[in-house]
């Protein structure tokens, strides 16, 4: 409604001499500002409490201050050392001095813990050195320290100290994809006992994939039935989908734990009906995880699909049939393309939600059914390895983020299909 720029309304120009257009613009600016001020409190809250902490995971995945905090001079010396052969007397003297001090004020454990990430057994080695450090009276420190524990003469331990010197490290991010940086700076595969993370990533994707496949196989016909059946039955069926949807995830997981036990309802039924001679193991394995996850995620596929299918007139399929299309052809070329936006939305919801599943696999799965979320929780709350927890969280976040363009493409592809 703004007037053409060359016309100014003299009559309504205020005492400030502003044109109507300028006043309108100012009023609109004011309105924008007011609107923004209403959003500002929540925006600030989300930035501080959500966006900030998520971004800080990037920082924590490379942050490596532990050794440098406890043994600053050692960290400095090994950082300059080239790592080719054993360091000199100065390095040994510094280590003795700093372990002595750190053991005295009980800060040595944090540094020892950090060193243990590099070589397992390093923690106890440092602690034992700390206990016996009193025996070292004076130089030469190199021989004295090797005398305490001959591993101090092994260059791999010194290289481990160099790798822990901080203040930043790529070890957690590399470890999350089963890689490690060798002492000479090259990047290679991590030793076999640490190459477990890609397995977890693959497993997370495979479980999510199969859960999604089952959800589509069962959910698509269900949504179709709800959308096309009579009004009354449709309402009842919809309620049957909505009730589990509203029921607590934990309650549903609990129900499956009860049902799937070795002496649970499902096994009792199978034995009673003669379908099986002995109780099947349905819990603490992959079967249980699939069953419970499909149950929990199925409504997320059915509901968006139903929302789309509801708006597809039944007459279209009849029209296709009257024009000679066989049922399968009519379904593939008329019905399916129109459901793709809903199917895409449902699929991406189910897939992304299942990538982040933690509770259900933790309660119903066995040790080999745990997903990336489990690793994150373990590292964060049990072992206190913030770096590793952050690195795996970033891996999971990137996996989820990579799916959003796929989703967009799917929805757009569906639209193009319809009009093309």
């Amino acid at each position, binding site marked *: 409604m703004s007037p053409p720029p060359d016309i100014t309304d003299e009559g309504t120009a205020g005492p400030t001499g502003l044109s109507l257009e300028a006043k309108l613009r100012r009023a609109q600016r004011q309105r*924008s*500002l*007011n*609107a923004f*001020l*209403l*959003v500002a409190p929540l*925006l600030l*809250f*989300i*930035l501080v*409490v*959500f*966006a900030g*902490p*998520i971004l*800080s*995971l990037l920082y924590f995945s490379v942050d490596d201050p532990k050794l440098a905090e406890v043994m600053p001079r050692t960290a400095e010396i090994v950082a300059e050392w080239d790592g080719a052969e054993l360091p000199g007397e100065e390095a040994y003297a510094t280590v003795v001095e700093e372990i002595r001090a750190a053991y005295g004020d009980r800060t040595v454990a944090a540094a020892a813990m950090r060193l243990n990430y590099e070589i397992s057994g390093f923690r106890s080695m440092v602690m034992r050195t700390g206990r016996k450090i009193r025996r070292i009276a004076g130089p030469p420190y190199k021989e004295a320290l090797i005398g305490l524990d001959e591993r101090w003469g092994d260059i791999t331990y010194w290289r481990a100290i160099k790798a822990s010197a901080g203040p930043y490290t790529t070890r957690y991010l590399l470890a999350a994809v089963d890689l490690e940086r060798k002492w000479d700076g090259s990047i290679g595969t991590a030793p076999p006992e640490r190459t477990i993370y890609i397995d977890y990533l693959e497993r997370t994707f495979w479980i999510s994939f199969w859960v999604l496949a089952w959800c589509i*196989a*069962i*959910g698509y*016909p269900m949504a*179709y*039935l709800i959308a096309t*059946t009579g009004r009354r039955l449709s309402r009842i*069926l919809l309620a*049957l*989908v*909505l*009730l*589990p949807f*509203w*029921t*607590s*995830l*934990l*309650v*549903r997981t*609990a*129900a499956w734990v009860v*049902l799937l*036990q070795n*002496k649970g*309802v499902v096994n*009792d039924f199978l034995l009673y009906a003669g379908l099986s001679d002995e109780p099947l193991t349905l819990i603490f394995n992959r079967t249980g995880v699939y069953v419970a996850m499909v*149950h929990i995620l199925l*409504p997320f596929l059915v509901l968006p699909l139903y929302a789309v299918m509801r708006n597809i007139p*039944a007459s279209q399929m009849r029209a296709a049939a009257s024009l000679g299309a066989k*049922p399968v052809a009519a379904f593939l070329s008329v019905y399916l393309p129109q459901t793709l936006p809903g199917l895409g939305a449902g699929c991406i919801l189910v897939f*992304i939600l299942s990538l*982040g599943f*933690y*509770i259900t696999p933790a*309660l119903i799965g066995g040790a080999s059914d745990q997903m990336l979320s489990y690793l*994150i*929780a373990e590292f*964060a709350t049990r072992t206190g390895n913030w770096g590793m*927890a*952050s690195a795996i969280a970033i891996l999971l*976040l990137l996996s989820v983020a990579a799916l959003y363009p796929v989703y967009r493409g799917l929805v757009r592809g569906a639209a193009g299909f319809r009009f093309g």
Partner: protein
Amino acid sequence: MALPVNATRGQHVWYWCLRLICAVGFLFLIGPIVIVVPISFSAGSFLSYPLPGFSMRWYDAVVEPFPWMFALENSLIVAVSTTIVATALGTLAAYGLTRADFPGKPFVFGLLISPLAVPLVITALGLYFFFARVGLVQTHIGLIIAHVVLAVPFVVITVSATLKGFDWNLVRAAESLGARPLAAFFQVTLPLILPGVLAGAVFAFVTSLDEVIVALFVSGPAQITLPRQLFTGLRDQLDPSIVAIATILIAFSLALLAVVELLQWRSARQRSRREE
């Protein structure tokens, strides 16, 4: 969806296959929930059928102060606080987002609802590190803040959706009659969008009441919530009192489902009336 009279044999097969898959699907969805309910009234301590007899003994265990009533109290404190804060902040933001355009609005909207898109365990990790540094780990306040983050997108989405059909002329009319913006909001806008706000509040409440992953990360023994206690119980010792608490929660979700359906029906009716 009835079969045409001239349906071929193949169509008949398909028709009944479809029905069969759907029957299995609906049974699968609702079965577990229906099956566990009677077990909670069992006189025995086995979690299977046939039930040895009827008793309320497991409900007696539920009303004991520890652990369930303590957990329920914590859950209610956290969920009610979360609902109040999330509904206030979310409604305010949704109002601002629909009232006028400002630079970067789509981005801001995306940011506000982004907690929905990030896997819970990642949010939990970020919050845990953040709270550890500012001293909010193992506090009620910390848990409430965390739940507001998770609940607020639902309020923003529901209230925004309700405001899309809102007739802003009503506010202009109120203001032209001398109402101050605040009075116009409380006397004109809010009563009209109340179904949407309440639906958002119910979503927020349920989100908090059902949340366990963040609670596992940031809360301590003094903030044990119902889902957390359920998680511990399921992992450590499984007894029918868990099924009893599950039954209570199922009844609660039924009630909430009814409330939300009612609210959505009312708000849809209002919208269609306006369009007439």
